[in-house]
């Protein structure tokens, strides 16, 4: 019969193949496992291969899951006290929040310059009753209320739109910074190096969006879209 020799040949071939492969088989399995586990671990750490830095990780995290703010007692440039997040809820507007210290010569001045533009834009289009701007100092020891008032005057801040506030209690400030993901490091000149971004807080007092410093227009757009769903 013609079938027998060919099946015999096949048997012989497969037994030879398994002889070659058998010692390596377990290692092939373990190597594949290592590769899979490595990819899963990397995907987990980098949020599905999308982030490499803590800064972009916190933007992703908030976009997926809005975050409650912690309690923060503050006073604004006029000395007016308020308690976050309650005050933000009562105000009813969408807030864009940034963290600065007034002596900063680098990134904070960029933030302030952008805020001035946003302030003018909001006033021009009559949207100041929908979106407000908030600046928080993370150096309340040196940024006293007098310093803040002076700073506000220099920046030409309009109190209808923009408030610059000083946290009253260091403990509350630390918790708030941790929750927002703001890290401040003192450098050798006694200046702070700190991460900065545009933080959008909605009318429920939840942090709903974090946008990189170079994309202020996206933050404003996001805030305006959120505010358009509010009843006027």
């Amino acid at each position, binding site marked *: 019969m013609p079938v027998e020799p060919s099946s015999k040949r096949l048997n012989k071939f497969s037994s030879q193949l398994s002889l070659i492969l058998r010692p390596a088989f*377990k290692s092939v399995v373990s*190597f594949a496992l290592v590769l899979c*586990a*490595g990819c899963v671990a990397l995907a987990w750490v980098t949020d599905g291969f999308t982030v*490499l830095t*803590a800064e972009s990780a916190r933007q992703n995290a908030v976009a997926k899951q809005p975050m409650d703010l912690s309690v923060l007692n503050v006073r604004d440039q006029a000395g007016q006290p308020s308690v976050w997040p309650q005050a933000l809820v009562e105000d009813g507007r969408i807030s864009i929040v940034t963290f600065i210290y007034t002596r900063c010569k680098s990134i904070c001045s960029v933030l302030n310059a952008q805020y001035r533009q946003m302030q003018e834009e909001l006033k021009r289009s009559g949207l100041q009753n929908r979106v407000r701007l908030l600046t928080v100092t993370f150096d309340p020891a040196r940024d006293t209320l007098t310093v803040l008032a002076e700073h506000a005057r220099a920046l030409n801040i309009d109190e209808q739109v923009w408030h610059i506030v000083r946290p009253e209690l260091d403990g509350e400030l630390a918790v708030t910074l941790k929750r927002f*993901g703001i890290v401040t490091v003192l450098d050798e000149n006694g200046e702070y*190096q700190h991460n900065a971004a545009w933080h959008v807080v909605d009318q429920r007092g939840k942090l709903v969006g974090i946008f990189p410093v170079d994309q202020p227009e996206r933050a404003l757009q996001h805030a305006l879209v959120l505010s358009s769903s509010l009843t006027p």
Partner: protein
Amino acid sequence: MTRSLRCAFVGVGLLAFLASPPVRHLLETSMTLHMGVQLPLLFLCGCMCVWPSRSACAKRFQDWNVAGLPGLALAMALAMVWMIPLALDAAVANHLVEVAKFACLVFAGMVACLSWCGAPIVAQGFVVGNVVWMGCVIGMLYQDTPQRLCNSYLEGDQQRAGQLVVINALILGCIWFYCRLRR
């Protein structure tokens, strides 16, 4: 006490030294020390701890670890995760992540040591070559990136960290080459 047993004791001692709060705190105040000193030393601790039992263990896992390749791949993957800026930041901010970092790197060192002994020169050369060029590329990226990669560390620190990573990679390559020449 045999020499290899002493090696393991030194490894455990070094690990205890690195894990002690003042040393840990000191090494994590700067990105350079964190990436360029603490992480490689933790890996080294893992290697030293299993040094006495390297042949016995390598024999036991021989089937699953032909030429040491799966083990070396695992060690490289584990070490690579902790080169990501995000992971460094998280380790500084969160104690649990910190513990995970210690465990991962020591384990990676152990696996690497056990796999290394059974690995032929081609596999060793491949791994060392890869680590050297990856270290150089990562180090140069750290030096050239205009933005701060770690929120917890200063920008100048990041450049120094990049330089040290390149130097470490080159030193590793030289040591391996020297060892091969001596044989």
